[in-house]
């Protein structure tokens, strides 16, 4: 016979979704959360929003690597080469 944990409430769920997505919840807690999700469209929505937030964040385009930056680092490399080549 399985002992069920105390049911989770919505207010707890929202504090745990990130850990849930990380796979970091202990098994018992994960089960309680999933049981709650199965019966709660609002928290299910919240989880979907969290996933979408992560997805959209991941789509930010990196800043441009400008010609000026390219020049600066080329300079840096050449100066380093010169220093390397100098007799000790």
């Amino acid at each position, binding site marked *: 016979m399985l002992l069920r944990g105390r049911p989770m*409430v*919505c*207010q*707890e769920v*929202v*504090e745990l*979704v*990130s*850990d849930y*997505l*990380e*796979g*970091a919840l202990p098994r018992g807690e994960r089960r309680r959360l999933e049981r709650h999700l199965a019966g709660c469209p*609002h*928290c299910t*929505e*919240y989880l*979907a*929003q*969290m*996933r*979408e*937030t*992560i*997805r*959209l*964040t*991941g*789509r*930010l*385009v*990196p*800043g*441009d*690597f400008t010609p000026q*930056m*390219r020049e*600066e*680092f*080329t300079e*840096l*490399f*050449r100066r*380093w*080469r010169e220093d390397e080549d100098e007799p000790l």
Partner: protein
Amino acid sequence: MTISGTAGAPWSCAPAVLRPVPWEMPSTASRASRDRRTVKAVDDDARLLERLRAGDEAAFVALVAAHHDAMLRLASNFVSSRAVAEEVVQDTWLGVLRGIDRFEGRSTLRTWLLAILVNRARTTGVREARSIAVGDAAPAVDRARFDAAGAWSSPPEHWVEDAEERLGAAALASQINAALEQMPPRQRAVVTLRDIDGLDSDEVCAVLSLSQANQRVLLHRGRSQLRRALETALGGS
């Protein structure tokens, strides 16, 4: 969305756009962050590194370009101006050139670079990323949205499928950047490294000298804040 080197947040350097092609998200975020840096990108790093060791200048510049954004953003969390952040990045690369043989491939190149960078940034940093007491923070969702029993009284509205359609890619990116700018530095660093730069949790802990537990707390707070920002922008609360 460029920034001035003086007033205002030195942090924000990503332009206000989203990538045109959406990434596929596996079911857990931790796998997702690993997938974000594609196998191809990591392979490219390996090839460029080999060429760099042989003295190839173009390979050096290509490597710098590949990691510049991640490095500059991370440096910005430790120092008070973009100009200083750029110097930290340059110093890091100089250090890398001088010790290029020391990369043993035990971590990804990006993780290795960022770890060196953090060391430099900390010694340079006027504004040390302050130890925010990990204990105190706003709840993920305003308490007022739950009833006395802890159930939603003001539940989230549905916007997941049409966020981009309703706001547009530029406005979305702008919201995300604005929310990131408002975060405490360490929280911002964790969310950025995980969800933008593709490091996994072990790598972030190594780079930022955080425990797994602290990393998770900071990630939770950061993501919750981002979700709230998007929800507000989409008119849901």
